[in-house]
């Protein structure tokens, strides 16, 4: 049972992790991606044959591998944030680089995935499916890159042992952003790769 669970169990207080502004940003971003998800299925419904044939060319194993990489990185971040609350510097300064490495892994997989498609002449303009595939996964990948920058920042804070209340809030905010990146991929993966 961690600190917040313990507080909730006692029924004394509810805790908002991170800053209010961060949650507004996260909700806004999730709303935009929700529209992406809807747009994809709306246009898929108009041309199921093309979408299904194009989807069959995607490598599901790589999509699933990337899901596992982001889930694992999220777990490292949860442990890292909890370590900062407990002022466990030696652990906190290991967790954020481990999460960052998972992000690197995600990028490497994406590099090979895009490379394989582009080498076969499949681009943004091939058809509607690939247009959405490149745009949505591209915008998501941009979020991953920003998140990796955030993880490096949190790593530097952890190495300095900056674990006061205000610092912990920064760790929580950065963590919440990274988890959002994870959960958006959790929906993108079945939508693009698995929906029949």
């Amino acid at each position, binding site marked *: 049972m961690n600190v917040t669970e313990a507080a909730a169990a006692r029924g004394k207080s509810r805790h908002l*992790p991170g800053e209010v502004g961060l949650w507004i940003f996260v909700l806004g971003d999730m709303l935009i991606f929700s529209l992406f*998800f809807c747009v994809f*299925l709306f246009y*898929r419904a108009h041309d*199921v044959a093309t979408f299904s044939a194009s989807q069959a060319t995607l490598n599901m194993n790589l999509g699933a591998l990337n899901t596992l990489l982001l889930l694992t990185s999220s777990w490292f971040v*949860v442990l890292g944030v*909890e370590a900062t609350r407990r002022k466990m510097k030696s652990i906190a300064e290991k967790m954020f680089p481990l999460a960052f490495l998972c992000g690197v892994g995600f990028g490497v997989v994406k590099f090979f995935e895009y490379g394989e498609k582009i080498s076969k002449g499949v681009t943004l303009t091939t058809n509607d499916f690939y247009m959405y595939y490149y745009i949505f996964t591209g915008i998501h990948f941009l979020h991953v890159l920003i998140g990796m920058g955030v993880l490096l920042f949190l790593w530097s804070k952890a190495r300095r042992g900056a674990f006061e209340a205000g610092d912990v809030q920064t760790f929580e905010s950065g963590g919440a952003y990274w988890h959002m990146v994870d959960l958006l991929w959790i929906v993108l993966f*079945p939508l693009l790769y*698995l929906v029949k």
Partner: protein
Amino acid sequence: MNMMSLINSKVTYVWCFLAVLTGVSWVLGDGYDPGTAEGYRYVTIALLVLAFFKTRLVIMYFMEVLNAPLPLRGIFEGWVIVVCGILITLYLTGGAPFV
């Protein structure tokens, strides 16, 4: 306090569960052949429900919204149900699955 006390927590079990659910989606979406177009529709609906169940686990346990102020938790609970519902509806308006 050591590393084990940190790892031996609910979030680690949630992470394991999420990994297992990803494996289930993988098998269901890639290897499993229900045989009929109708069967594939059910598989797809199951995949979408599974995905949003996973997002809820991430939101509640990783982002710690479970113990966040109730209005914020309500917004996220609503997001999971509403977006999942809209996507299933949009999916069902499409033609028969091409398998």
